């Protein structure tokens, strides 16, 4: 009889469900959930972020007096909780909002994490934080820039990174400065990929530039993970813009770099909005083809002996690459969360939430170059800031703007290869 068979199968399935839901043993560590893309197209960013957070845990759980004023570095463990250790439970969001949500639920209800960190892709940060909001668990996002995330009226969501409008402002000011120095910036071309990240950043830039007298002459939107970009580069070559702003993930960034060289196209000034152009993979594979590209960042490695330099050495041992801006922001988000837990002196969600609201970190307490960390009532860090960096030798990015933060002056025109 058919139903008997189904019964057998459903019991087997039931047993596996019981297994799936098995909660692990309790112990004295403070567990934090970290949901990142550890597979799929964005895996490169997720895997680097994992190494960054593991470095942060090393710093927190062990005494590192050489790291200066960084909170939680001096002592081993969280002083506010009697030296309790921190543990991150990583979950792969597989690039899917649904999977991200399921993992968020598992981390909250099964692993009993006290807070969540994540999730890189803004769409996934959206759905995973919706779960933590429902359960009253604090969620700290270190790197997702979509504006909508802090417009939902959430009480448990906190974002440390600057958002798209902050970056648009940085680009605006930078370009105006370049114009004052004699660089032509009248024709601006935006090349952006067609998913949520590229479209939202592009529209923010377009809006802000328009409000300030700069117009976008060419808006080239393309599908992410495309097989070929020759036509797009030819469109640029045809119209000859003064400034090209690239908003791409790594795979497309590599394609653009190679195609521009193949078609012998060099814009006078090229800017990139983080993401693909900040990925160490791009620098390794195509860095020599895009020498002189500007980028935005809030992180710089700093002089030897400085805390950020030392942290970079620790990170390099784990991941094989230098800390890039994205991974650094993930690390910073994690530090902010742990600092709040430490100040709360407890793992109760409402106490952590209160501590987060009261966060007031000074610049010398951060690894990022922000002006500080202080959240407004939407949960956004109002002291987040960034600067402009440039890939001058094809291997390393150096800060070039604003003048007071710059290491060297910007090199123009764009060199390419």
């Amino acid at each position: 009889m058919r139903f008997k068979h189904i019964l057998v199968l459903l019991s087997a399935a039931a047993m596996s469900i019981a297994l799936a839901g098995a909660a692990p043993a309790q112990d004295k560590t403070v567990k934090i959930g970290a949901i990142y893309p550890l597979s799929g197209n964005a895996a490169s960013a997720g895997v680097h972020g994992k190494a960054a957070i593991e470095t942060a845990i090393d710093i927190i759980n062990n005494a590192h007096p050489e790291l200066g004023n960084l909170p939680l570095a001096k002592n081993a463990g969280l002083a506010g909780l009697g030296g309790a250790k921190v543990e991150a439970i990583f979950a792969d969001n597989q690039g899917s909002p649904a999977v991200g949500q399921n993992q968020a639920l598992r981390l909250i209800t099964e692993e009993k994490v006290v807070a969540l960190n994540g999730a890189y892709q803004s769409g996934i940060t959206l759905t995973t934080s919706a779960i933590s909001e429902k359960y009253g668990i604090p969620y700290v996002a270190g790197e997702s820039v979509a504006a909508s995330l802090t417009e939902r009226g959430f009480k448990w969501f906190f974002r440390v990174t600057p958002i798209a409008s902050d970056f648009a402002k940085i680009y605006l000011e930078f370009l105006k400065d370049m114009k004052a120095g004699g660089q032509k910036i009248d024709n601006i071309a935006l090349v952006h990929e067609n998913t949520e990240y590229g479209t939202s950043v592009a529209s923010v830039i377009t809006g802000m530039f328009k409000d300030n007298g700069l117009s976008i002459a060419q808006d080239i939107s393309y599908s992410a993970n495309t097989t070929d970009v020759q036509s797009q580069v030819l469109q640029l070559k045809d119209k000859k813009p003064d400034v090209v702003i690239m908003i791409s993930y790594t795979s497309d960034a590599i394609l653009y770099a190679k195609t521009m060289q193949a078609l012998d196209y060099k814009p006078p000034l090229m800017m990139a909005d983080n993401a693909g152009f900040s990925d160490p993979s791009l620098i390794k594979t195509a860095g020599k083809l895009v020498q002189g590209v500007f980028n935005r960042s809030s992180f710089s490695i700093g002089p030897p002996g400085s805390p950020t330099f030392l942290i970079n050495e620790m990170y390099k041992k784990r991941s094989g690459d230098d800390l890039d801006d994205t991974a650094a922001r993930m690390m910073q988000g994690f530090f902010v969360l742990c600092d709040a837990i430490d100040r709360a002196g407890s793992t109760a969600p409402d106490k952590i939430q209160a501590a987060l609201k009261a966060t007031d970190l000074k610049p010398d307490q951060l690894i990022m170059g922000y002006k500080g960390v202080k959240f407004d009532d939407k949960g956004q860090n109002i002291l987040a800031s960034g600067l402009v960096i440039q890939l001058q030798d094809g291997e390393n990015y150096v800060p070039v703007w604003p003048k007071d933060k710059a290491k060297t002056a910007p090199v123009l025109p764009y060199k390419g290869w």
Partner: protein
Amino acid sequence: MSSILVQVIVGGLLLGAVYALFSSGLTLIWGMMNIVNFAHGDFVMLGMYVAFVVWTLLGAGPFLGAPVAALVLATLGIIVYFGLIRSVMKGPMLAQILGTFGLALLLRYSVFWGFGANFMTLPENLVGGTFDVLGIRIQASRLLAGVVALLVTLGLHLLLTRTSLGSKMLAVAEDSTAAQLMGIRPDTMQAIAWAIAAGATGIAGALIATFFYIAPTVGETLAIVAFVTVSLGGFGSVPGALVAGLLIGVIESVSAYWIGAVYKDIVVYSLFLCFLWFRPQGLMGKS
């Protein structure tokens, strides 16, 4: 303005030749064994990684990388045939989709596990740089891939139509019982067909690696292009795949230039659908 258009078309032809190159293996097995191979894109990806390993260990370019990739992939093809394909061939199309989908995941993430998520490339100048022909820029690596595409298409076509091995393979494809009665072993022929197709795919991957990026997820991007190329060309027709590939490459490039990149895929899919609706057997497929 028109020299840019010529550049666009030349670029489109070269792109299309690449599409044809990595689709020829797929159409061979699709036509011969009626197999839907969802893992095809990942075979291409493996060819790329073999080329990368050859370069890393021996410093050699595609002239060594492609033959090595062909061998490695052909061997893998035989293993996959005896391990999986032979059983699912007997089942319905669904079983083939199921099996090859699982295979795709397995291959993709084994490579992910072994090589990591980072994007990699072969050095820029491995196959010479870019040269100018009457004002049109042509990348040597893409030109090489295009030439190899023509050679592979010719080679496979001649193999199928002019050699006794080829006619045996076609006999099995036509009617395996009748072929058996004539002393041909279907199993052997199909394994050989699978190995040849995989080998051709390996060559494709090794050549594409000279100008594209290398990552475990490349298969996802390329698979669907291969599927469209093969069905437009007609399942089983290697010359059809060449023509279809070239056509798609040019249409894609010209639409991307004239209308915009996001619309190029819309144009290709729409034309593809209309074509199928009016000529259901593809360009050169059997009626």
